[in-house]
Structure formats: structure tokens, C-alpha cells
């Protein structure tokens, strides 16, 4: 009986899980192949503080370095994200889709449904862990990497239990609130904050033990890959998970189920309040619907707010003073980094403030932040309205399809610029606070280039959205392309004969000219801007030619 809900929940998720673990396996293969061919002294001789941050274990060799970085960082986050996505979808997801009513109209208790969803989550995370465990044996064997002394089994077990902890936490929040965004948002926040806390607190003298208050501590601080399973830590995580599961069962049974959910935003509350009604009405009502692009932008305001705040405060303002706290030995050491390796982590000479910001903020986080916003808007712009079946009504108005595409592209551009601006303001403020004396113009140039880079990938998402009308394709293809192009640009230059091909990657036109030191490279900026314009133009053509989809 339960098998129906269980098998359906498993079926809904197996593809995403498979793609995730296969990608991790490929990345492990790639990382081991690269690490095998370079002198690891540059990593292993790093000061302890920096090694802790990059998740590089003591006495690292090729195997432990690859496992530590790939599984300890990407693997742990991916598995936990899969689990929390399933956990938050378990009850709250069905409510959001409005399917919980019909599901519970069958002779199944709420507890049974929850149990089936739990079983599906445990099974899928378990299977994913098994694949990673297998990959950690097969990949080194293929590449002939020595894994002596590495205890992959216990490490995989820690990965598994850690991921489920976040899955059950999300499930409990979802079961109590019935809100999927609340469940996944709060759990992601716990995960990210505790990850940073566990990386940072041990570096601050006198605060080392504060890290124990955060759950990520119990994932790998006992170094299970060397020391085996730490049953005390596992026991804590399992006990917490059990409490969450019981809480979820109690929560889902005692409350009224929600119908399809419409989020209540701050502005809605202001509109309901007679004091603020007039202003809020103008903002939320007449202004919001005055133009297609403003309405499109308003639909993504939450995403923009979060992304811009993260870039401004965490990646911008905080990084400046943090740099000054850093151990000088790290900075001296950084001089010895081979240039090619520095290019791989986003370039930058760590002994300068510019290099520091390039590695910490601009190398990866800034492109990711801009792309999160531009790809989300680009992909949803056309395909999203089609999926929600509102495109027909929109196009019943006397406006050409090209105008819809261009207004949506404009919303994407405005938001991309906003993230770029937040990054610029944050880094400029961080530089002032830390008295780092960075050049404002250079910060602006780099922020502009990263915005243009993000817009190019947003343009790709828009084109795919226009061509296919399918949100999934328009989201995942640009992400895959961005990852691929980033790796090409990072690793091709390590080989002199292949270095020239890096020009085919849009990332080449972002940091290669070292804009944080040299200022704006207008030629490179023009390439990225031209690419964006071409992709938007292509979107107009593609969208005009095609039948609108009508999803059932």
C-alpha cells in the first residue's frame, strides 16, 4: 500500500539524484587527474588556517586532497541539498502544488504518507552515497592513485548521515509550517551558516569550541577519512534526525492542511495596513503592473534581495576587514604559488588585497551570484509564463512577441546590473573598512565585467527559453555550460599548447585581463556585451517562429 507513495516519491527524484552523483564522479575524475600531474607541495605546505578553509587534510596526497575537496565540500553540499529538497517537498511540496488533498483522499493516514516520503529520501540518499563510495574506489584505480590509509567507507557513512540531518530538518519545518520556501530556506540557512562557522571559528583564538555548536562540525571534523567512523558525532546527528522525524509526524497530524499556497510578502502586509496602504498600493499594485519588465522584475525581487545582500555584506564588506585579520604567513606564502595554479582558483596574487578579493569574491562567488539572477529570469521569462499558462493571455494583448522578449531581457539586465552594483558597493566598502586602498575604478570595472559575463549566460537561458518553452532546459543547460566553460578557462592555460583555446570560453573575457589591477578591458567587455545582444536577438527570432506550448 505504502509502496505507491514511496515508489512515486522515489521515481520523481531519481533523475536529479543520478545527474548529481554522476557529475560529482566526473568532477572527482577530473580533480584526481589534475592533482596527479601537479606538484602537491603547493597545497600541503599551506598554513593550517588556509588549509582548513579549503578543506585540505593534514599530510594530503592526491587521494585525500581530491576526496577532501570534492566530497568534503561539493559532495557534502550536494547530498545535503538533495535531502533537504526532498524533505521540504515531502508534505509542504504537495500542499504547494495543491495535490495533498487528493493524495490524502485515499485511505492513507498522514503518518503513512510521511513514512513513505521518509523511506524514499533515505533510499535515494543511501543510493547516492553508495555511488560516491564506489566512485572513490573506481576512480583512483583507473588513474592509479594511491589510496592507502584512506577509509572511504566511514567517510561515505558520515556523508550519508550528515545529508539526512538536513533532510529531516527541512521535513520537520515543512510539516509544521506547510511552507516549502520556509522549510528549504531555513534549512539552507542553517547549513551555510554552520559551514562558515565551522570553517572560521577554529581559526579565531579562544573561540575554537564555538564551532561545536554548529551541526556541520559533526560531519567531518573528526576526520573520518583517516580515523574511521566517529560514533559520538554520528550518534548526535542521528538523534537530532530522529527528533526532527518525530516532530514532523506530530506537526503534520495536528494542523490544518493548506490549499495551494500564495506567498504573503511584506508588501502585502503593508497593503493590508490602513496606515501604509496608499503608498504600498502604488508600489505593489499600479507600479508593479505598469510595464511587462517591471512586473517580471517584481516576481524575482526576493531572489535579487538575497543575492544582492550576500554579495554586499558577506562577499563585499566583510571580506575587507577579514583580510587584515589574516595571518601574514599566508600572504607571504602566497607569493610562491605558481601562476598557473592561481589562475585555476580565479587568478589573483593573495599577497595583495586585489588578489584576495579576486580569489574570495570575484573568482567564483560573483559570477555565480549574477548568473543565479540572470539565468533565473532568462529561463523563466518566456518558458515560465508558458508553464503557468499565462502567456496566451499576455499575447492576446496588442503587443508583438518581440516586445515581450525585449522587456523580459531588460528585466534581466536591470537585475544583473543590480547584483553587479551591490558587489561593487560591498567590495568598495570592504576596501575602505579594511583600509586596503583598492582603486574604486578597478573595482567598478571588475563588477561591470562580471555583470556582462552573467548577462551572457542569462542571454543563453533566454534563448533556450524562447526556443523550447521549457524551464528545465533553460535553467540547466546554461548552468552546465557555465561550469564547462569555467573549467576550460581554468585548466586549458595550464597546458601551453592548449592555452589559446581558452578564448572560446566567455570566462576568458572576464578575469584574464586582471581588471582588479589593470582596470577595464573594453575589448573584452565588448565581446561579452556583444554575445549578450546576439543571444537576445536570437531569442526574439526563435520566439516569433514557434507555437506556444500549452502544458496540460
Amino acid at each position: 500500500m505504502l509502496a505507491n507513495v514511496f515508489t512515486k516519491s522515489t521515481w520523481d527524484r531519481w533523475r536529479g539524484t543520478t545527474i548529481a552523483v554522476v557529475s560529482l564522479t566526473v568532477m572527482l575524475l577530473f580533480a584526481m587527474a589534475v592533482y596527479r600531474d601537479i606538484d602537491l607541495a603547493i597545497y600541503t605546505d599551506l598554513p593550517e588556517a588556509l588549509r582548513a578553509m579549503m578543506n585540505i587534510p593534514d599530510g594530503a596526497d592526491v587521494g585525500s586532497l581530491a576526496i577532501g575537496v570534492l566530497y568534503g565540500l561539493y559532495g557534502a553540499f550536494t547530498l545535503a541539498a538533495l535531502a533537504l529538497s526532498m524533505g521540504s517537498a515531502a508534505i509542504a511540496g504537495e500542499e504547494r502544488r495543491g495535490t495533498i488533498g487528493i493524495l490524502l483522499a485515499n485511505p492513507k493516514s498522514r503518518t503513512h504518507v510521511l513514512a513513505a516520503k521518509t523511506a524514499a529520501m533515505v533510499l535515494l540518499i543511501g543510493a547516492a552515497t553508495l555511488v560516491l563510495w564506489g566512485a572513490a574506489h573506481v576512480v583512483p584505480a583507473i588513474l592509479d592513485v594511491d589510496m592507502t590509509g584512506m577509509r572511504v567507507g566511514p567517510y561515505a557513512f558520515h556523508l550519508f548521515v550528515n545529508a539526512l540531518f538536513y533532510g529531516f530538518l527541512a521535513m520537520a519545518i515543512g510539516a509544521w509550517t506547510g511552507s516549502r520556501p520556509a522549510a528549504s530556506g531555513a534549512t539552507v540557512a542553517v547549513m551555510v551558516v554552520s559551514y562558515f562557522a565551522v570553517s572560521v571559528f577554529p581559526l579565531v583564538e579562544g573561540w575554537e569550541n564555538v564551532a561545536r555548536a554548529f551541526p556541520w562540525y559533526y560531519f567531518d571534523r573528526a576526520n573520518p577519512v583517516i580515523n574511521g567512523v566517529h560514533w559520538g558525532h554520528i550518534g548526535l546527528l542521528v538523534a537530532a534526525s530522529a527528533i526532527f522525524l518525530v516532530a514532523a509526524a506530530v506537526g503534520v497530524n495536528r494542523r490544518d492542511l493548506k490549499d495551494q499556497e500564495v506567498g504573503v510578502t511584506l508588501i502585502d502586509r503593508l497593503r493590508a495596513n490602513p496606515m501604509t496602504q496608499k503608498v504600498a498600493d502604488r508600489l505593489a499594485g499600479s507600479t508593479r503592473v505598469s510595464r511587462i519588465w517591471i512586473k517580471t522584475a517584481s516576481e524575482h525581487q526576493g531572489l535579487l534581495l538575497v543575492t544582492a545582500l550576500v554579495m554586499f555584506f558577506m562577499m563585499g564588506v566583510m571580506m575587507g576587514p577579514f583580510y587584515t585579520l589574516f595571518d601574514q604567513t599566508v600572504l607571504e606564502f602566497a607569493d610562491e604559488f605558481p601562476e598557473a595554479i592561481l589562475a585555476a582558483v580565479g587568478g589573483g596574487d593573495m599577497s595583495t588585497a586585489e588578489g584576495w578579493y579576486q580569489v574570495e569574491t570575484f573568482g567564483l562567488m560573483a559570477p555565480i551570484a549574477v548568473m543565479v539572477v540572470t539565468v533565473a529570469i532568462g529561463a523563466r521569462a518566456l518558458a515560465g509564463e508558458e508553464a503557468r499558462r499565462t502567456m496566451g493571455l499576455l499575447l492576446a494583448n496588442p503587443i508583438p512577441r518581440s516586445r515581450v522578449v525585449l522587456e523580459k531581457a531588460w528585466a534581466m539586465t536591470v537585475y544583473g546590473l543590480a547584483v553587479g552594483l551591490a558587489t561593487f558597493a560591498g567590495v568598495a566598502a570592504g576596501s575602505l573598512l579594511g583600509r586596503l586602498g583598492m582603486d574604486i575604478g578597478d573595482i567598478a570595472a571588475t563588477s561591470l565585467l562580471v555583470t556582462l559575463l552573467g548577462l551572457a549566460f542569462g542571454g543563453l537561458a533566454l534563448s533556450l527559453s524562447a526556443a523550447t518553452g521549457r524551464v528545465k532546459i533553460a535553467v540547466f543547460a546554461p548552468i552546465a555550460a557555465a561550469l564547462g566553460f569555467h573549467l576550460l578557462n581554468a585548466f586549458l592555460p595550464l597546458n601551453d599548447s592548449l592555452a589559446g583555446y581558452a578564448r572560446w570560453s566567455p570566462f576568458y573575457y572576464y578575469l584574464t585581463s586582471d581588471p582588479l589591477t589593470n582596470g577595464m578591458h573594453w575589448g573584452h567587455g565588448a565581446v561579452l556585451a556583444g554575445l549578450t545582444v546576439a543571444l537576445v536577438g536570437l531569442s526574439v527570432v526563435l520566439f516569433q517562429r514557434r507555437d506556444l506550448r500549452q502544458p496540460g
Partner: protein
Amino acid sequence: MTAQITIHTEGLTKHYGDVRALVDLDLDVYAGEVLGFLGPNGAGKTTAIRTLLDEIRPTAGRAEILGMDTHESAVEIRRHIGYVPGDLALYPNLTGRDTLTYFANLRGGVDWSHVDELTRRLDADLSKKVGDLSSGNRQKVGVIQAFMNRPDVLVMDEPSAGLDPLVQREFQAMMREVAAEGRTVFLSSHTLSEVQRVADRVGIIRHGRLVAVESVADLRSKAMRRIELEFDSPVEASVFGAVPGVREITVEDHRAVLTYDGKMDVLLKTVADRYDLVDITTREADLEEIFLTYYRDEVNA
């Protein structure tokens, strides 16, 4: 009819791969009429409407609205039409008023006093978020949106879905008023009683092909009548079978039930010659029976 043609299709055809969703649709709709577009699920009604709106492009054939090609002049045409899509979806985070404001901004020239009147007539609530409305109340927002700029041509796909009977009456009156003002209503519907009440003509579509276009009055007059006759003595079936036009005969002692499509005069004279007629009940066929007749052939075929 001398009225101006407002919607005109010529061999309009749409294939999805091997699926022939719409085949050679030739149809004219005139100013000042309500055309009911009938057909079971999957017959091609929505495909036809989406082609008229240029949401999808025909595999063959063409269509005109107000003398303009539906693809070439799509934008200009949309200044003159109101549209309620089938299975209506709106933006859940906008209130009804926000939704109407949005479309009014895109459309231009909306008279808000008219919107207020429509809102009052349909008893709609525009202050709530669309996502919080029941499907019927959401449908009202969609209907107001289609009527609000007094379009020359209204194209509606199952517009009364979810509306309660009182609101349906009002909505039907609104459609009749549109037609009375010389404007056109193209109404796709399952609700046969509604089509019967408001439509001047009906088009019946089946498997993507238009099988009949007739005025509602003509369809009814052609249709079978069901007649119950009661006599003061037992009757024999053979007497009725001899009358041309009598189809199904059920005789039970003093009663006979017939379906008949001939002249009433002939039938009555024949039976009155033989028996004493005590009572007669006849009922005009309604659209549902006509509709079922068309589709029963399909089942038998």
C-alpha cells in the same frame, strides 16, 4: 446573411506530428451573432481558438479576423479582440484589480467605469489575490478582462467554467448584449444549455473536422421529437410503425412512446383514426439530444 464577416477561416489545418488536431476548417462568423462552438474533449476546439489568436501557427490554410490575416496582422487584430483562454490561468500573486490594470496598461483605452460595471454585474472581488480566489471567482476576473475594452470580437474558450448559475445567467445576458450591439462572440463550450440560450448558430466539431454549422432554430426543427401518447385501450406497435418518420417505438399496454421527425398532423390523423387519444406529451428536442445524435453516429461508426 448580409452582415459583415468578422471571423473567416479557409482550410485551416493544424497537425501535431501525426495527430491531426484540426482539419480543413472553413467557417464564417458574422458581426452581431453569437456562434457556439461545440465538440467533445479533444475535438479541436482549443486548437482552432489558439490558431485564431496566433498562439500556434496553422500547418495549412489561413484565417482572418476583421479582414486581417491572423498571423500577419496579429498585433493589430488584438486591439479589437477580447479573449478568455481555456483552463484560465492568471498571476496568483496579483490581485484582481492589479491583473486588470496590467492588461489595461498593455492594451490601452480601457474605460474603468465599464470595468466597475462588469465587476458589479458578475459580483467579482477584485481586492483579493487571484491565487486566493476560488476557480469561479478567478474566472470572473478573466471574463472582465476580456470584456473590459468593449472588443469587436470576443473569443472565449469554456468561459463559464466554475461560474455559479446566477452569474452564468448574467454572463449570458452580457454576451447577448455584445451581439445586439453588432459585435461578435465566438463561444466554445460544453455547456449545451448555455449555447442553446445564447447562440444564434452552432458549429459542431469532431475529430478536428467541422461536421455542421447551423442556426440553433434549424437544428432543433430537424431534430427528433419524443412523443408520448396515451389511449383509452391497449394499442399495437404496428399502427405507429406504418407512419413515415416514426423511429423508435415502445408500446406498453395503453401507452406508446415514439421518436418522430415527421409532421405532427400525419401522425395524429393516423392514430386518431384507430384509437381514442387520451393524452399527448411532446417535448422539443434540446441541444443535448442533437449533440448526442451527432456523436452517437461516431460511436456506431
